[in-house]
């Protein structure tokens, strides 16, 4: 009995540094963000807190009538809903290649393909900015060789977002690839053997054995990837500053600009709350889809 009390006391002692830090530097700020969204906290308030007024839903009303907000929301949705699935597809394809029975030097390919994931996003975004250079960029030079004529990747509102997607996919696919490889290795080999005995083609095996068996992995990967993609920031900050014509301004970039450049922190908090709601509803939706797929 006393040992149990000792354990309980020890548990709280061990937990307290982490819980305290999380409470003060995470939980309280989250709650405060919601409250901040209902105020007109701005540059003057930074100097003198007395000037803050509670303005109710005024920030949200402004938000809903702001074309820039809608554009940022659309851009973020486009980036996440197209780029996210593409990124997952690339990861899965790479995982199938690396994990194929005939593949040699598996550890080598695994590590090399994973490498972009560990690099610094800001640094590689700068590298890609030059790879995308309309005149001297490597990408246009390669496309030119097959007769596709110079594209102003980052200067054209149509191409800027796809160009940023490509960078995000390049940077991120290695992580999901590893997760998929782990998932693939957990699929019992006899399932494939049985499918082959039934005369299943490789595609049928993929459709009816691999994909269903990967479902838990796929759920994890989808959530992690989409949540990450909704948080787009560094690529447009470094590569396009949100342009051209605001075509790459994301919600987080909008929050950063409003909050930390113009110090309209109440308004920026409203943007942050919207980001949270977007991510939350996506995750809940995904969870529901997952549950329905199981039952």
């Amino acid at each position, binding site marked *: 009995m006393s*040992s*149990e009390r*000792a*354990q*309980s006391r*020890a*548990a*709280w*002692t*061990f937990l307290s*540094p*982490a*819980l305290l*830090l*999380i409470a*003060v*530097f*995470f939980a309280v*700020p*989250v709650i*405060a*963000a919601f409250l901040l969204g209902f105020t007109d906290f701005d540059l003057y308030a930074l100097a003198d807190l007395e000037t803050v007024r509670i303005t109710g839903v005024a920030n949200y009303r402004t938000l809903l009538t702001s074309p820039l907000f809608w554009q940022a929301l659309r851009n973020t949705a486009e980036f996440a809903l197209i780029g996210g699935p593409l990124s997952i597809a690339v990861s899965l394809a790479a995982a199938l*290649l690396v994990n194929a029975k*005939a*593949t040699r030097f598996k550890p080598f*390919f695994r*590590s*090399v393909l*994973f*490498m*972009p994931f*560990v*690099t*610094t*996003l*800001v*640094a*590689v975004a*700068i*590298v*890609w900015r*030059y*790879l995308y250079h309309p*005149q*001297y960029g490597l990408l246009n030079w390669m496309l030119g060789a097959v007769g596709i004529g110079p594209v102003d990747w980052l200067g054209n509102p149509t191409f800027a977002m796809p160009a940023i997607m490509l960078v995000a996919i390049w940077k991120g696919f290695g992580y999901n690839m590893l*997760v998929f490889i*782990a998932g693939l290795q957990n699929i019992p080999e006899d399932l494939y053997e049985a499918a082959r005995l039934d005369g299943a083609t490789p595609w049928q095996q993929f459709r009816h054995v691999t994909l269903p068996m990967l479902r838990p992995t796929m759920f*994890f990967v989808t959530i992690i990837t989409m949540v990450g993609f909704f*948080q787009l*920031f560094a690529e447009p*900050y*470094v590569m396009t500053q949100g342009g051209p014509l605001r075509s790459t301004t994301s919600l*987080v970039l909008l*929050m*950063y600009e409003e909050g930390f450049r113009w110090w309209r*922190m109440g308004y920026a908090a409203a943007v*942050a709350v919207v*980001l*949270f709601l977007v*991510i939350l509803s996506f995750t809940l939706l995904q969870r529901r889809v997952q549950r329905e797929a199981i039952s």
Partner: protein
Amino acid sequence: MNRLRTVLLHAALGVTTIFAVAPMLWMLSASFMPTGSANTFPPPLIPRNPTLEHYRVLFGQLAVGRYLFNSALVAISATALSLFVNSMAGYAIAKLRFRARDRVFRTLSAALLIPVQVTMLPLFLLLKQLGLVNSYWGAIIPAIATIFGIFLIRQYALGIPDDLLDAARVDGASEFRIYWSIVLPVIRPILATLAIWTFLASWNDFLWPLVILTDDQRYTLPVALASLSGEHVMDVELMMAGAVITVLPVIAVFLLLQRQYVQGVMQGSVKG
């Protein structure tokens, strides 16, 4: 037929590998090119007259050494502190019996859904009140206790046999003693994974340091690099050298410790 398939398989792997490494190789190569020579057509792949001038300018005039130091200090402190704090918490949730355990675990799981950007505006104001804006602590503190880290440790610590801990208790070892001399050695593999993970995340982090480090004496490398790239847009080769300096340490850490890291990612994700 089978041989053809193997060849195609490796061709596809080769293309994917080129896709993955080409940007980094070009970055490295261009960093050695004399000023202006990357901006020619067709774009040169290999420096014809390799030079170290950009590295010299970066470490001399532009004082990149300072940012390198800042980045290392922030990343190493965050990693050390986070290992300690998260391992205690993760172990406690996994192995110690206390009443609110499930509630703590569930609350933390729910909090995982909240994107960290939501905290940033109030956190900035809070740290401003505490006088920590533009300080190393301001950059380090939010990275110390992470729910992800706690869960990673917990998942692994679940595998520690209870008998091992109970035997130590019977022998009269204190709970801290048990954590320090029995648990920590057992969970070493996952500590290594968490260490690499935290170090890389902290080194590569951009938005938070950008917000909290306002004076360029305190900039970490990514923040400094982004700011330099605004001023030196035209200096491709210089910027590539800056990118190399930023990326090289994390690539080195990864290459040295990739075994633990890759295994950790694969295990953690499958169970988690």
